[in-house]
C-alpha cells in the first residue's frame, strides 16, 4: 500500500519540485517574505490590538504617528507584484542558467511596468471629464497584479534567455571591462523582450479588457484564488504537505509551488480590505497556514515533543524530547523527523498526517463561528511561538486560546502512537540490558587502540 502510494507521489513531487517555472515562482515569493514580515511588523505596531498601547504612542509621538509606519507597510503589501516580478525574474534567470541574473530580473521588472497603466484617472467634482495624471497606481502593483507579475517574469526572462542562447548579442572586443561587456550583451535580448511586451500592451489597449491586468485577473487570478476560498483548500494543502514528508520528501517545497501564490494573494487581499475599511473575508491566509495548522514544525509535532520530554519512559524518547523541545517551540522539528524517526516510520504516519488536518478544521470552524477573529493580512516569521503568534495574527487573545485547544487535540491524536513507540523503545532498552553478549559493554572509554 505504502509502496504503491510512493510510486504515485514520487513522480508528482519530481515534476513539481524540479519544474523550473514553478520553482522560480515559489523561490521568488520566498525572496519577498522578509519584506512582507518587516512590513507586517510596522503594520502591527500601527494597528496594535491594545488601545492602551495606541494611546501611549499618540501621547508620545502625537496624532498621525501611524501614517509614518504606513509608508513601510504600503511598500511591502501594495507593491507585492512589483517585488514579485523582480524576484521571480531573478529566480527564473537562475533556473535558466543565465550568468547575468540581475539583468533578467530588471528586464522582467521593466516589461511588467511597460504593460502597467501609466496614467491614473481621478473623478473631480463638478468637472465634466475625469482628470488624469502620470504615475502608477498601487492597484496594479499590488495583489491584483500578482499573477500577471508571475507570467510576465517567466515570459520576459524566457525571451531574454532565448535571445542570449541564439547569440543575439553585441560582442565587444576583449579588454573591455566585464561589467560593460555584460551590459552590452544584454542590450538586444532586453530590446526583444521589451518590444514584445510593448506590443502586448497595445493589443490589450484595443480589447474590451483595456489592460492586460484586467484580463489576467479575470481569466486566471480570480478563478485560482477562488479555489483558495473553498473550505477544503487548506485541508488539502496540509494533508499533501505532510503526506510527502512521510516519504522523506520536503512536502511544503512541493506543494508551495502551487499553493504559495494563492496564500500570498489571500493574505494581501485581507490587508487591502482592512486598509479600505472593508471586512476581511479570506480565512486561509499565510498567517492561518503558518500559525493555526502546524505547531512545532510539519506534522504539528509540538504536542508529541512535549509528551516525549515529560511523559516518555524510554531513555531515547526522553532524551530526544528534551533536546527537541526548545527548537520545537520555534517551529523546528528536524531532529525529530530523522531522529525519532518520522520519515518512513509507518507508526507515526497517521498522527503526523492527521494532526495538521484536525488543526485546520478546528481553525476553520473557530473562524466561521466567530470564536476567533479572521486572521489579519500580516505575515510573521514562521518561527514565532505558539500563543504569541495566535494573538498577533488575529489581534485577539482568542487566537491564542484556539491555538492551546489545538495543541491539546494534537496531544490526544499523538498520544496512543507515542505510547506504542515509547513501549517499543523501552522493551528494546530493557532487552538490551537483560541479554548479555559481547556487545553489552560497548564503550569508547576503555577502547584499546592499535
Amino acid at each position: 500500500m505504502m509502496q504503491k502510494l510512493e510510486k504515485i507521489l514520487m513522480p508528482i513531487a519530481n515534476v513539481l519540485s524540479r519544474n523550473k517555472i514553478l520553482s522560480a515562482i515559489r523561490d521568488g515569493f520566498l525572496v519577498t517574505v522578509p519584506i512582507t514580515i518587516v512590513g507586517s511588523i510596522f503594520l502591527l505596531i500601527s494597528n496594535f490590538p491594545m488601545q492602551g498601547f495606541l494611546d501611549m504612542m499618540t501621547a508620545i509621538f502625537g496624532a498621525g504617528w501611524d501614517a509614518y509606519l504606513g509608508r513601510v507597510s504600503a511598500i511591502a503589501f501594495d507593491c507585492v507584484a512589483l517585488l514579485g516580478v523582480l524576484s521571480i525574474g531573478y529566480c527564473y534567470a537562475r533556473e535558466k542558467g543565465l550568468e547575468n541574473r540581475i539583468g533578467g530580473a530588471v528586464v522582467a521588472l521593466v516589461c511588467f511596468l511597460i504593460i502597467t497603466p501609466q496614467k491614473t484617472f481621478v473623478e473631480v467634482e463638478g468637472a465634466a471629464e475625469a482628470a488624469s495624471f502620470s504615475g502608477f497606481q498601487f492597484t496594479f502593483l499590488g495583489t491584483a497584479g500578482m499573477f500577471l507579475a508571475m507570467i510576465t517574469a517567466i515570459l520576459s526572462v524566457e525571451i531574454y534567455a532565448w535571445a542570449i542562447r541564439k547569440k543575439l548579442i553585441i560582442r565587444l572586443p576583449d579588454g573591455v571591462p566585464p561589467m560593460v561587456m555584460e551590459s552590452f550583451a544584454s542590450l538586444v535580448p532586453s530590446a526583444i523582450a521589451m518590444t514584445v511586451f510593448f506590443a502586448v500592451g497595445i493589443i490589450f489597449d484595443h480589447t474590451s479588457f483595456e489592460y492586460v491586468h484586467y484580463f489576467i485577473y479575470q481569466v486566471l487570478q480570480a478563478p485560482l484564488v477562488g479555489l483558495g476560498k473553498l473550505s477544503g483548500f487548506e485541508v488539502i494543502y496540509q494533508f499533501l504537505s505532510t503526506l510527502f514528508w512521510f516519504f522523506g520528501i520536503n512536502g511544503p517545497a512541493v506543494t508551495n509551488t502551487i499553493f504559495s501564490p494563492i496564500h500570498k494573494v489571500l493574505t494581501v487581499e485581507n490587508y487591502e480590505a482592512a486598509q479600505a475599511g472593508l471586512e476581511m473575508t479570506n480565512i486561509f491566509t499565510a498567517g492561518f497556514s503558518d500559525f493555526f495548522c502546524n505547531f512545532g514544525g510539519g506534522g504539528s509535532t509540538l504536542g508529541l515533543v512535549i509528551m516525549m520530554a515529560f511523559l516518555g519512559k524510554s531513555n531515547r524518547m526522553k532524551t530526544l524530547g528534551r533536546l527537541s523541545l526548545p527548537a520545537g517551540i520555534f517551529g523546528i522539528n528536524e531532529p525529530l523527523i530523522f531522529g525519532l524517526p518520522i520519515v518512513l516510520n509507518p507508526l507515526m504516519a497517521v498522527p503526523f498526517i492527521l494532526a495538521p488536518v484536525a488543526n485546520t478544521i478546528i481553525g476553520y470552524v473557530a473562524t466561521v463561528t466567530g470564536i476567533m477573529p479572521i486572521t489579519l493580512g500580516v505575515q510573521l516569521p514562521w518561527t514565532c511561538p505558539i500563543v504569541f503568534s495566535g494573538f498577533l495574527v488575529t489581534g485577539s487573545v482568542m487566537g491564542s486560546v484556539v491555538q492551546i485547544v489545538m495543541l491539546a487535540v494534537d496531544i490526544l491524536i499523538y498520544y496512543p502512537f507515542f505510547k506504542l513507540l515509547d513501549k517499543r523503545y523501552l522493551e528494546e532498552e530493557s532487552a538490551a540490558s537483560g541479554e548479555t553478549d559481547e556487545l553489552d559493554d560497548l564503550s569508547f572509554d576503555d577502547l584499546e587502540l592499535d
Partner: protein
Amino acid sequence: MKVVLIFDQGLAGAGGKSNPNVGLTAVKGGIGSALMLEPHFEKIGAQVAATLYCGNEYFRDNEEEVVKKMTAMVKKVKPDFVLCGPCFNYLDYGKMAAMISTSILESTDIKSCAMMSVENADTIAAYKDKTPILKMPKKGGTGLNDSFADLCEFIQCTVKQSEELENVRTRVCY
C-alpha cells in the same frame, strides 16, 4: 548478517543542531534513523548490531580521534558490513562518514561504505576512489526508499562477493 551503523547526533536521535558536541557513543542495536532502514535490512537478513555516533562539531574538533576510535570500535564489534550514513546533505557528517569508511577499508578486512547526497560534492570528489559512496537524495528530496533498496543490493553483493558487485557499484555509487 551483522551491520554497524555510523551516525551523527541528528540521525542517532540525540538532538540536531542543539546537541552538536555529543562525544563518541556506542549503543547496542539500532537507534534513531535505524528504524527507517530496518524494513529494508530485514529483506536481506541483516540486523543492526550496534550504532556508533558523535556530534558534528565534536567530529570537527577531533577528526583524527573520531576516525581512529570509530575504526577500533568497528574492529571490536566485527560486523559483516559498516554503513557510514545515510548522510543526506549534512556536510560534516558526509566528511566524517567518508573518512571513517576509508579508514575501515584500509585498516581492517571489514566491508564498508558511505552514503550521501550530491551536495557533499567536495567529500565525494576526495573520497570516491577510496571508499564506495552510495547515491541518495538530499534531506527532503525524492527517492529515499529507492536509495535504501540500492543500498541493500550493494550490501548483499559486497558481503557475498557477488560477480554483480561491479555492475551494482557502477550503478549506485558516485
